[in-house]
């Protein structure tokens, strides 16, 4: 991928700016010019302070009316059922329910962190074009293999909680695959133009949200299903 050039060294004297926009069939033309700039002080600083203050006011009001939970003193002999980790780890705990600890507790979070870290270092994540617009046949095959394999895997291990978001994302991907870029529907045009990194991140976000919400609200004694409004 030598057709991409990014060059700003961190000792730049001036903010980098875009000067040309080149596509294969057009000649170079200027698309963007120097933008209007304002002084950080006071324009940006006060806005930042304002935003923080609004948030703090909200937090203060919340603290005035909602008390932080405090249960009985720690007692190693009395295990609450269920014993839950902090909410941001409940997605992982939900996975622990399905997979052995070495998978759900070590491999999944480890891979996750690695995946997040390497995002900007792989060109596939930087390419901004829609998944199926280039190499459509190959990409479709890859999509079918990955989506099918993942779904079967999750289905095999009864991980329906993770299967549902996967199927939903796969469904939208299918819509994207069989929509024309010139579709009259804005939504379809939008889907068509999404690059592959967008789809993966969206799938991850959806999984994270669903698993965390399920772990937080829908799990009761023995990690069984409960309905939060019926307790």
């Amino acid at each position, binding site marked *: 991928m030598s057709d991409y050039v990014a060059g700003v060294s961190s000792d730049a004297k001036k903010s980098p700016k875009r000067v040309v926009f080149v596509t294969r069939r057009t000649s170079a033309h200027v698309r963007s010019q120097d933008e209007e700039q304002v002084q950080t002080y*006071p*324009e940006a600083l006060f*806005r930042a302070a*304002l935003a923080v203050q609004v948030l703090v006011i909200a937090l*203060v009001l919340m*603290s*005035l009316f909602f008390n932080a939970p405090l249960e*009985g*003193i720690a007692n190693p002999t*009395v295990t609450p059922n269920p014993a839950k980790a902090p909410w941001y780890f409940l997605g992982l705990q939900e996975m622990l329910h399905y997979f052995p600890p070495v998978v759900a507790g070590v491999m999944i979070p480890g891979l996750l962190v690695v995946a997040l870290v390497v995002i900007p270092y792989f060109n596939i994540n930087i390419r901004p074009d829609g998944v199926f617009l280039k190499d459509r046949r190959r990409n479709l095959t890859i999509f079918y293999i990955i989506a099918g394999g993942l779904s079967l895997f999750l289905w095999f291990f009864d991980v329906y909680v993770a299967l549902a978001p996967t199927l939903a994302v796969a469904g939208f991907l299918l819509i994207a695959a069989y929509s024309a870029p010139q579709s009259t529907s804005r939504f379809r045009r939008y889907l068509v133009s999404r690059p592959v990194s967008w789809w993966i991140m969206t799938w991850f976000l959806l999984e994270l949200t669903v698993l965390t919400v399920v772990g937080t609200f829908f799990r009761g004694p023995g990690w069984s299903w409960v309905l939060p409004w019926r307790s």
Partner: protein
Amino acid sequence: MRTLKNCWNSWRRLFGDPIRAFGITSVLLLIALAIAPAKDHFSEWRHYQHGYLKLIQSRRDAPVLERHFQAGIHQIWLPKLGVVDRCETCHVGLTETSLGDVRMEPYSRHPAIPHSMQQFGCVVCHRGQGAATTVAAAHDSTLAPNEPILPARYDEAACGQCHHADLEGTPTLNQGRELLARYGCVRCHTIKLPDGSAMQPTDAPPPLTHIADKTTREWIYAWLKDPASYAASATMPNFLLSDQEARDISAFLMANSVPKPGDTASLKATSATNADPAAGASLYGESFCASCHAMQNAAGNLVGGDLGPELTAVGTKVKPEWLTAWLRDPRNYDAGTAMPHYRFTDAQLGLLSGFLESKTNSDLLANVHLDPATPEQIAHGKQLVEVYGCAACHAIRGVPKPDNYGPDLSRVGSKPLAQLVFTAGMPRTLPTYLSNKIEHPRIFGPGLHMPQFTFTPAQVDALTTALLSLTDRSYTLPAKMQIAAVGQSSYTPAGKAGELMTDLNCMACHRINGHGGDMAPDLSWEGSAVQRQWLDAFLKNPNTLRPALIRRMPRFNLTDQERTELTNYIMTVYQNPKIDRDAMPQSGYSAEMVEHGRQLFYGKYACQSCHIVDPVQDRGYIGPTLTDVGSRLNAEWIYLWLKNPQQLRPGTIEPNRGMSDDDARALTAFLTMQKGAGSRKSGAGVASLRTSGTKGVGQ
């Protein structure tokens, strides 16, 4: 939608001029931050302290009370007890003695108690969350290690955390502990005390090894179905068995029973058939069977003691041959029985067994028809016996005693609610759970085996109180605060006399050197107390010292040799080493000294209000009759007793009057003159007066 758009627009405008917006939000933030201290200022406890000031304002003692009052949070901090109690922050007047008339909470005064609040705090007794300064958190918190406030009717449970021995001021707790031991609760449930000892049962469930010698399968069946239908005072609980279960258990017990030689006896036909009911009844009375056994009288009231089983319908239960053998020698059938070995003659045996056999209840077995047992039924019966833990109480051949059949209750008073199952609608508190469990053990779900007892509401409260006293705190309190239960020593009398005393089961009623029952006087120092002639005569024909009591020492028909053996042993062994029997002369006091003693008796000390010296004129029935005290007690013993009764017998109700030596000597002189010759009236006429206070009363 439109308002949303407006909001959005104003939001953008806010960012359009950030400095002005910053100014506005700064003010808002300051206001929001100011709410926290304001909320603090209007806290609950300030409200209550304000109310207290208003309350005392109009009182006459206002200046004193106001001087005592200090605004702010108050706390009792006792690190060794783990106490941080801020109760006094709202309960401001707890220690104000002059607020006795205030009924309004939280300002009322604490009732007088033997402990200082500053030394114990509040939650040690009342539970609740001492650290809290809000009403709800202080009283209703169920967060470990806090518990909700203990309802007032279980207050005595608090005392039981340290006082493992009975206390005078805690009748409910004492009763509860007694019931735990008496109803065999502690046979299934282990109850360990902080000192490591375990609560011991005081009931005597009979062994079932030779049950077929004693009774019929039909009776067992009826008894298993409902013990109360046979005897209203039965301590055996109802296991709520189905007909089939009762059939199979009875089948197993009969099949499992092995006959024992000597368990059946046949008397000469004449003595058995000629039994005269009236003579039998009088022998029953003369032998003082009613000291231990109860019987329903014509009015339907139970009369008699509860040490042995109720005999109202004993004729329906036991086989005549077994009964005769039992009366002749109870130890043959049950080596551990509390029943004494009376030396009945064959004629007496006939009379007594005839009388008892006539006590029947024809309804009990009227509808019980059992087919011969099949091997499957017997096998199933054995299974059931194991399932229901029968062997926890009864010795059953081939069924080992289960260890910890029921849950351990050593710390049940601190059981976390999370570990309990409540029925729908039941208030989720520990006392509610315990009292419901005691009253209706099986309502908490299927598969429970705890049987149904028949307790009165007062007994349920007493049991709940006793269980609530078994707390974690009890274990964490400093050891020096623990007052141990008075346990039984392992004393057994030695030698030939010892054998005799075991055979007669003296210790079922008498306590000697820390071992034995509490129905009759403690005999540890009997040898120092009484005169030999009196003891010998008493053993020959015991008559009552306390006309007001229905319980008597029975006559065992001892042979002369046995009697002499026993007298010698008691006079030699049961001596208090600190008492010199000859320090005071037994007679020969001057007439004026005796007269002085008489005046002290009737005048200064008014002894006649409890004791009788002159049977015609005195009416004191609380203490023992003293008409023959001069021939009964040793003079030195009398003297020392008068000086300090509690030293000779701890816990006696005889008051210590702080007598001077002279007064005590004069009274001794007067009392030794009471020889009571010829005045030995049998107390039968006053035996109808019944009291229950037999514990620790001086002779």
